[in-house]
């Protein structure tokens, strides 16, 4: 079973995405902020995909992506970030930080799952 690591400061988003993924047969790990996520990465968490929000209190998503990419174990980890139309501009920044792709919020379950299928085999 593939495991998807979700990082978002919104409990609503975390719950809704993990519901969708759960139904589609993915396991999920969750963190409410970048610091918590980094702690789990530092501890060597085994995941197949990271999905993170960009706008979070404390370290933001872009910093998270940059730091995860620096860890040798996660050099090639697919990373998707959640974004909204109004944040179009930040895609470039996040890509430069090492993200693989993005999911535009709000996404339907199909859009979400399709995007995930695109980056993990």
């Amino acid at each position: 079973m593939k495991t998807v690591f979700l990082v978002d400061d919104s409990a609503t988003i975390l719950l809704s995405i993990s519901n969708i993924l759960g139904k589609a047969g993915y396991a999920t790990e969750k963190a409410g902020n970048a610091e918590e996520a980094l702690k789990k990465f530092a501890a060597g968490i085994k995941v197949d995909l990271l999905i993170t929000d960009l706008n979070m209190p404390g370290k933001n998503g872009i910093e998270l992506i940059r730091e995860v990419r620096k860890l040798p174990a996660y050099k090639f980890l697919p990373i998707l970030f959640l974004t909204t139309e109004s944040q179009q501009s930040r895609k470039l920044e996040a890509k430069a930080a090492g993200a693989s792709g993005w999911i535009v919020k709000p996404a339907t379950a199909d859009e979400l799952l399709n995007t995930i299928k695109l980056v993990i085999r």
Partner: protein
Amino acid sequence: MDELTSVFIQESREQLAEMEAGLLVLEQSPDDPGNGELINAIFRAAHTVKGASGVVECHFIENFMHKVENVLDRLRNGEIPVSGGLASLLLKCGDHLTTLIGVLEAGLPEPAPADQATGDALLAELSERYLASAAAGDTAVSLRDSESGEVMASGGGIVVTDSWHISVRFGRDVLRGGMDPLSFLRFLGSLGEILAIETISDAMPAAAEMDPESCYLGFEIRLQTRASKADIERVFDFVREDCELRILPPNSKLTDYLKLIEALPEDDMRLGEILVRSGALTQAELDEGLNAQRDEAPLASADNPPHIGEILVDNKVVQKELVDAAVGKQSRIQDKKAVEARLIRVQADKLDQLIDLVGEMVIAGASANLLARRSGKAELVESTSVLSRLVESIRDAALQLRMVQIGETFNRFNRVVRDVAKELGKEIDLVINGADTELDKSVVEKIGDPLMHLVRNSVDHGIEAASVRAQNGKNVRGQIELNAFHDSGSIVIQVRDDGGGLPKSKIRSKAIERGLIQAEQSLSDQDVINLIFEPGFSTADQVTNISGRGVGMDVVRRNIQSLRGSIDVSSEEGIGTTFTIRLPLTLAIIDGFLVGVGRAAYVIPLDMVVECIELDSHGVDRDFLNLRGEVLPFIRLRALFELPDDAPPRENVVVVHYGGQKAGIVVDQLMGEFQTVIKPLSSMFSHLRGIGGSTILGTGDVALILDVQALVQRNSRIEEKTLNQASLARAS
């Protein structure tokens, strides 16, 4: 309501509180250069609510917050200046959001027309004042919609094929971006059928120079699908910036294939062969095309780029990049250490269930203890006592789970004080102490309203108008303090103001007017002040809409008493007033002291018990005794509850104290301390005074829990009455 919606509602309220806190600071000091992070935090909160509202498909909240977010976005980007007016308007938007969340919580499909109108008015004001100049910028991003009719170049015959042709050359860094080229291919396969695929590895350097982490591959793919061009392109969305991608629709013109061959970095002939091999072109088509192109070649001048179609494509790419880059530089990143506690959200009723079970365990433990003691087996007694110690620890830990900090409740008053003070034209600071003091969640929930009343009272009646304060030599800015702290098993919450104090003479005359006291009755200062807690008392000359809501201090007191708490007031004219609320730490379980009267058992909350003494039955015909030189009034439970049997020759007195007063409770037997779960009395018994609840003993018997506060107060009232009667008797 589903779980997602309730999580959303709770989260939105939290975010809203954060927004409000930020906006209040912003309103007070709009010019502070350090506001950047604050504005970011406010934006983030609004953004989270909007995003989450989309997820739960609550469109009225989403639509409303969309505009609010836009304004905050402009504020964040420095496009509009920070101003007190804007902060006030945004605070009103926050209020409206509260309403909308309420609508969602009530399960209504949309807000009432009046609320809708309020929201529309707010949005209109936001748009007009803060979004007007931005409207033009909104349209710039929709360039990619008009791509369908690509490559309308002239010349060349139609290539007979019903499949798409995709040429892709991946960028070197695609692996390092976490992307796997194979996953693209697999995904393409899910769109339709891949008829042919050729791997192009021409870019692969010699092994010595090759970087294993770089990607050197490209693919030529023939894909049969009903998907649109946009769908196919979307597959490559994530790598578009750094890969070369060309997509030819089915039945493209031959020249388009030729252009493709030319544009790709590899050798033309080889690519031609690949296309033939993959079935995109026939050899004849390729030959024809190459010939035709040779014929046309002299016409195209060397300076002009030869292919208009390609220019179009390129233009689009350039424009897209321009658009992206133009907005690309923002987001100041501040390395702020997150201090947020690590939290797990648990549904409150699960906790209640746990506490309930722990309660049952406490009872069962008590029963086991009792049986063990009766059996007289030392080992059994030993092991049950270990067990009960553990149960006690579990009880404490479980109760701790329900403890929340009172800070959140206190922080609400920032807004209240600000709003009310503004309305009254007063300047008032709110000082909060002990925000981290913890108490039971159910207590916190219920204490909000009484506190609100007290704070509003302090702002409205307590703090004087600025001119009066200046006259009296006080600081023009009034101060209201909210304090919370623990004090011997209970939590104390104080509302203190440095206002004019309670006007005793006014209270007195009002009380006489209302018939609460007799004109000639002599009362101590404290008694006069306490009159404000009497039902139907209000001193405001004018009923203002701030505190004169028809709810008097008596209701406040009743609410607090229903929490097994008490409220006291102390006041000095000209200096200020302090309301002190005492509350039990929890409502569910108490340490009790078990006593017996006749065959009935009663429980006295242990933290109120001071000592136990033997009642000397001889010479006690009055209801007080001499406790080391102090007068101690007491109550005979047997008489109070009208128990039929006679008192035994030896009786005991449990000395209790409450709110600075001491009293004795006369009982037959002292049966020791034990912890117990409070079971509320049914509403049938709610009028009973002196009993706060019931509990079940280890033996299965029911014991009533005494309401010590009510007993003490009753006692002192009786005492006063007899004193009054005595003094009246003396006077006549």
